[in-house]
């Protein structure tokens, strides 16, 4: 009889109930995110149940895993002197292989194949599927590494649980201490020196691989030597090394995905000036974290960009500026506009993408308001009305707005392109307004470049997708109000690679003063559709801005 299979079957029998539950959860999770079942349609109650389950099921899976792994390892404990197998002809290597086989088949392979199957159903390409495997392995094994090592270094479930809680509390305290240190010392320059996003990804991959390698080494060592003290020392050293790799790994081997090259379209005709409209300029005190920080003021102004090809928009990024004053004083500034996080859509460019339909409710704020300068209070007091020569080098991210598809304004209308899907679940009509409940899903693979390692899977404030309500017959369109909808709180926190986000899009034809922009009735809706517009980054370009008589306190 093959002893490995004998051992494996024994463990399966021991854990038969949790295994059944585990597979039930794996299948339930698959069912919940498989198209069709994932769309409970207009039934709001069913949608609520669905949302609860999509969060609950992965949570339960994690809890189950936290319980099953120690039971599996503690079946033949590696710590203590009373284990049954110590004095039986049971080879430690055989046990190790048996446990690895169990973990591989039950915990890794089954969910891996299921998830890859789901991704395939969602339209993932062969390349995406090929990258999904290593990504799932990388992230699952990372989680496993902690659990398995902790189980291998404890004798009973109670000790495992207690130690797990202690480690969690200890980790939290360290994190709190680190965040407190951040308040007084700028650790970022120490920890992530000149880190680019791809270097961050490289460090994440390298530290995760190191973590997995250390976990395998400690596990093997503990099985072969049963030297718990040595294994604990090893684990402590491993945590330190993984930490150091995570922050100081030098080799940037991941592709530079978001390092956009120079824009391929000709931007030589693009001109950038600072608006001379005094209403576009404002001055603000800079927030201080600590009372001993210097008082500063920021001077904001609007950039006016012209010469962009139709359908394109330029969003300011990095600003490097200087103000040379007549007495030789030079005030310098370097800042970054985080337009990606608070995305503003340029109504004119959106209108262009809509093939001429007029946007009835364009947003008032302008995307090109930037910090022109930040200056210490004493200098501001001295020079605020003194003219000087302002020079700035501004880097812009060039984006194009494209209408990629449309959906009828009715439940079950859907948009499908590759791994991106959207479906309308409800349309609620109000007097002069309508709310469209829509659910989006997309595949988001870290290794495929869909997100960075430290980036959330879903940024509710910076989605590069806009749903515009358009009536082509009337050539009218409405932008959704700034409402991220109920989706945020229902995000599937455990599902990173296949994200389903419900959105509530409210379109109003009424102004704040009660003025009607258009008659939003059934006739209007008969010819209406939801147009999906996507903003795509196509490159970067830099422009210089010069003002000879720049005065900080504009009149």
């Amino acid at each position, binding site marked *: 009889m093959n*002893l490995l299979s004998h051992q494996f079957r024994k463990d399966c029998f*021991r854990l038969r109930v949790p295994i059944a539950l585990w597979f039930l959860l794996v299948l339930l999770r698959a069912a919940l995110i498989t198209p069709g079942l994932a769309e409970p349609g207009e039934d709001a109650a069913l949608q609520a149940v669905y949302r609860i389950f999509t969060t609950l099921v992965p949570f339960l899976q994690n809890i189950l895993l936290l319980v099953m792994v120690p039971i599996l390892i503690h079946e033949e404990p590696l710590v203590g002197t*009373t*284990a049954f197998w*110590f*004095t*039986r*002809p049971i*080879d430690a290597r*055989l046990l190790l292989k048996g446990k690895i086989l169990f973990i591989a088949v039950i915990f890794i392979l089954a969910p891996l194949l299921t998830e890859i199957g789901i991704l395939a159903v969602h339209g993932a390409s062969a390349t995406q599927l090929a990258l999904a495997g290593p990504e799932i392995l990388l992230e699952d094994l990372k989680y496993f590494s902690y659990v398995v090592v902790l189980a291998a270094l404890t004798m009973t479930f109670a000790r495992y649980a207690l130690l797990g809680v202690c480690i969690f509390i200890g980790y939290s305290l360290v994190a709190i201490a680190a965040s407190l240190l951040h308040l007084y010392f700028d650790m970022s320059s120490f920890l992530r020196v000149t880190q680019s996003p791809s270097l961050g990804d490289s460090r994440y991959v390298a530290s995760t691989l190191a973590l997995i390698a250390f976990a395998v080494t400690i596990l093997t060592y503990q099985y072969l030597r049963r030297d718990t003290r040595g294994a604990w020392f090893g684990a402590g050293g491993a945590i330190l090394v993984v930490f150091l790799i995570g922050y100081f790994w030098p080799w940037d081997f991941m592709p530079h995905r978001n390092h956009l090259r120079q824009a391929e379209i000709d931007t030589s005709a693009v001109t950038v000036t600072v608006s001379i409209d005094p209403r576009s300029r404002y001055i603000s005190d800079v927030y201080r974290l600590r009372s001993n920080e210097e008082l500063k003021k920021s001077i904001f102004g609007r950039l006016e960009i012209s010469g962009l090809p139709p359908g394109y928009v330029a969003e300011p990024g990095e600003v490097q500026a200087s103000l040379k004053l007549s007495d030789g004083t030079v005030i310098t500034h370097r800042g970054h506009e985080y337009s990606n996080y608070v995305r503003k859509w340029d109504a004119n460019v959106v209108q262009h993408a809509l093939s001429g339909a007029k946007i009835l409710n364009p947003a008032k704020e302008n995307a090109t308001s930037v910090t022109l300068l930040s200056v210490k209070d004493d200098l501001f007091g001295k020079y605020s009305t003194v003219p000087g020569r302002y020079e700035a080098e501004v880097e812009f991210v060039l984006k194009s707005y494209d209408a990629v598809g449309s959906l009828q304004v009715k439940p079950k209308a859907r948009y499908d392109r590759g791994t991106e899907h959207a479906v309308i679940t409800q349309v609620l009509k109000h007097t002069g307004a309508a709310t469209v409940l829509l659910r989006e899903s997309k595949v988001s693979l870290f290794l495929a470049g869909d997100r960075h390692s430290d980036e959330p899977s879903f940024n509710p404030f910076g989605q590069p997708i806009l749903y515009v309500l358009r009536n082509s017959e009337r050539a009218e369109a409405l932008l959704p109000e700034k409402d991220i909808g109920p989706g945020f709180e229902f995000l599937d926190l455990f599902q990173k690679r296949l994200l389903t986000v419900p959105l509530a899009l409210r379109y109003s034809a009424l102004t704040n003063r009660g003025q009607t922009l258009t008659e939003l009735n059934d006739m209007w809706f008969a010819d209406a559709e939801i147009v999906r517009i996507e903003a795509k980054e196509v490159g970067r370009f830099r422009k210089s801005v010069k003002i000879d008589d720049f005065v900080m306190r504009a009149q």
Partner: protein
Amino acid sequence: MSNAIETIGLGKSFGKNAAVCGLNLAVPEGAVFAFLGPNGAGKTTTIKMLMNIIRPSEGTASVLGVPSTQLGAKDFLQIGYISENQEIPEWMTVGRLIHYCKAFYPNWDDAFCDRLLKQYQLPLDRPLKSLSRGMKMKATLVSSLVYRPRLLVLDEPFSGLDVLVRDEFVRGVLELSEQERWTVFISSHDIDEVERLADWVGIMKEGELQLCEQVSSLQARFRKVEAVLPSEGGDPGQVPESWLLVDRAGHRLSFVETQYSNGNTEQDLQRRIPGCEQIVVNPMSLREIFLALARTYRL
């Protein structure tokens, strides 16, 4: 005759506390060795070192010719080990335990197993956790005997067992060890339990071996001596180390002579206490010897 177990200067310390110190022990093959001592004497620590459960701090030990620190899976094919504090997989039924263990032993004897299961009246379909302590010990015993180990190590196997179960257990081990010529190494703090079993005895106290001898040799040199002392001058003074349990009640003196050789004790007594009369020297049963040792070493 080769030794099934042999230790040279074996020791184990936990921090500054020496649990076992300089242990020199030889257990001949085929012997039933009673390893006695009070609680905390270092018996279990010694056994754990012998079974390669813990590593010695000093000295060496060999078990069936293999250095104890190198005892591996294949060596345990010839060793049966039962301990009061061994954790058995209690979720298993008796039948599943037998089935699980069987796969690891090529020389598993099914007929022998069936016979023992029947003899001990073990219910195959009941989980071990639902069985009494005695039944669990019997199940462990069956799983440790049916592959006919050359060496059977029993660490305090009688703790918590009632008298009937103890008796059954002892009889079972005794019969089998005689039939199969196994070496049995049994530790206990309860001398009554091993009295019937042992043909060798070792006594531990505070981590050191106080005595290690064949029982027949013990019986040859142990005698119960009683005498009537003279009415005057009957004080024996400093008694020799070989006298144990010296008791003087009125004119009567009694003690256990541990170095008896024919006629020597009587002459020695006459020399020490002139006028001593009615000297009676009686051989001692194994139980009496054990009891004398137990009282002396506070077992």
